[in-house]
């Protein structure tokens, strides 16, 4: 679901974002078309006295709308990791940075934590603070992200891995 890419600014920056391009106006147009047909049919039956079809149609259209909105909104998720000699800066947001964390590079570690079920999450920790990254990635892709971040952030991750 995501691409991790070196920024044009150089090798000291990584951008993690979903790798699909959503055409939201197109999605809205198609949703409106589907909703109009579904609700018109249900309204027609309701007008003939068969009203129980209407709530089912309404629920279904709401579920479809919510699913489209949620999945489209996720496509805007962007995470930018900037690395300098001493610092690791993590920015998260949609369209613009909305949250920002700054860790000392020497103390930053990349941890893969199991979640309930069979999933994992990738967390960058430093001195008691933790930030999850790549949460919009498919579970399997998070392992790859963790490996990449460990080798990128510095010798500490590699050393830690070697310790085990």
């Amino acid at each position, binding site marked *: 679901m995501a691409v991790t890419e070196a920024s044009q600014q150089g090798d000291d920056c990584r951008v993690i974002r979903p790798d699909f*391009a959503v055409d939201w106006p197109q999605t809205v147009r198609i949703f409106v078309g589907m909703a109009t047909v579904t609700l018109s049919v249900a309204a027609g*039956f309701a007008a003939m006295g068969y009203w129980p*079809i209407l709530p089912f149609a309404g629920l279904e259209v709401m579920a479809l709308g919510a699913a*489209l909105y949620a999945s*489209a909104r996720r496509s805007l998720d962007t995470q930018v990791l900037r690395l300098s000699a001493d610092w690791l800066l993590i920015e998260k947001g949609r369209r613009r940075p909305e949250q920002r964390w700054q860790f000392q590079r020497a103390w930053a570690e990349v*941890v893969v934590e199991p979640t309930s*079920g*069979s999933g994992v999450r990738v967390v960058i920790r430093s001195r008691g603070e933790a930030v999850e990254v790549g949460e919009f990635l498919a579970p399997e*892709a998070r392992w790859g992200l963790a490996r990449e971040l460990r080798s990128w952030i510095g010798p500490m991750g590699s050393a830690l891995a070697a310790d085990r």
Partner: protein
Amino acid sequence: MTATTEHESEEYSGLRGFAARWLFTTNHKDIGTLYLLWSLLMFFVGGAMAMLIRAELFQPGMQVVDPYFYNQMITMHALVMIFGAVMPAFVGLANWMVPLMIGAPDMALPRMNNWSFWLLPFASLMLLSTVFLPGGGPSGGWTLYPPLSLQMGDAFPFLIFSIHILGISSIMGAINVIATVLNMRAPGMSLMRMPLFVWTWLITAYLLIAVMPVLAGGITMLLTDQYFGTTFFSAAGGGDPVLFQHIFWFFGHPEVYIMILPAFGILSEIIPTFARKPLFGYSSMVYATASIAFLSFIVWAHHMFTAGMPLAGELFFMYATMLIAVPTGVKVFNWVATMWRGAMTFETPMLFAVGNVILFTIGGFSGVMLAIAPADFQYHDTYFVVAHFHYVLVSGAVFSIIAAVYYWLPKWTGHMYNESVGKTHFWLSVIFLNVLFFPQHFLGLAGMNRRIPDYAVQFADWNMVSSLGGFGFGVSQLLFLYVIIRCMRGGKRAEARAWEGAKGLEWEVPSPAPHHTFDTPPRIETAGH
């Protein structure tokens, strides 16, 4: 300070890991596999019911089962095959292939995907369990017409509940397909560059969204008529049982296309591969699919010509139904034009695809015959109708699913299947299918009613032939099971592009497809593929 460094290969180790993988999986490939395996199981369960039906009809008189159980088998065979086998198989194929075909790493809503699968076995088992309840299972036909369906025993609420759950599962699957196709295509994969299988599934999902509330409302009204004193379909209380037929078929006819449009998509993938030519008329295929979907909303009453309706209504539904032959003809023409002067080879998927085109067209012809209102008065509720919809659904939908399995099995398992066994499976299937269903045209034209366990002696010969074909067809499908199991366990390694002429993103990833694909966005270059 330590870091977790478990490798992904250890993620699913052990029994707990196995359960975690298959119970809680959110991976589209795993869920696709679960759907397909469940569908295969239901195919054999529904097939076993068909064997019982054909055993009873082997000779006139009552030999194998009592008439009431026979009626249950007729009803359950339809429900199991439609809701348990064919629809889940297409959802399984969509789960496996749609993300791969559009360059998405997974379905848009993976957790909902897990739910939509696990509702399916629960609801299917509830449906099957009704046979063991006091009063037996549903026996009034899959159409559930009142007042007959309201005379069911204890099975009634379980039947309604199971259909509701199956419907919820289908709706969740449809929502997921729509969200995935609209919001998760790789950059450059515009709508008119999508593979036809994805297009047909998008339109199928649209049909599901439009008609499932009608079914849900209809069966809920049956439930309230039975237990809560409403009279939606009871003439005694001012309701109208015929209006249930309208409600049911407003759902039921698009449902037929829900089961055939993805099949058209599969054919549009397979035929160009083995003809080694691009699909002829890609845009017209898309518009033809959309036209069929539109027309499916305005033809429902051709199932009800004999229920009584004004002449103008009969004329409208007759002509509207005949119109469907036009976009369907466009499709058949395009498939034939794709094959024309192609460098054709006939591996098993292509055999099933070509067999599908020919036999589905026979079903289409008998469909046009049935669309003629005055003629339908003669054909209605006879074995001619049974022959028609089995030609459409078995040689149309089921053959396409089998073709798709043979086509994508190397991608799923990483192994090539046994081609000789596959071809034997095809030839036995196609021969026995015709022995099974073609005589039913004669039986229907001679006046044999459908849904009867006993019949007049004049129908004995063709029924015996049909039953022999049925047994042969049933046994032939064991070869399919054998091929799948052998291919899962091993065999010749499949290359990433398992078929020489195959185009499309799914053939760019290794075989078997890794658990996670398209970590980086693919490049989309060619229209249509």
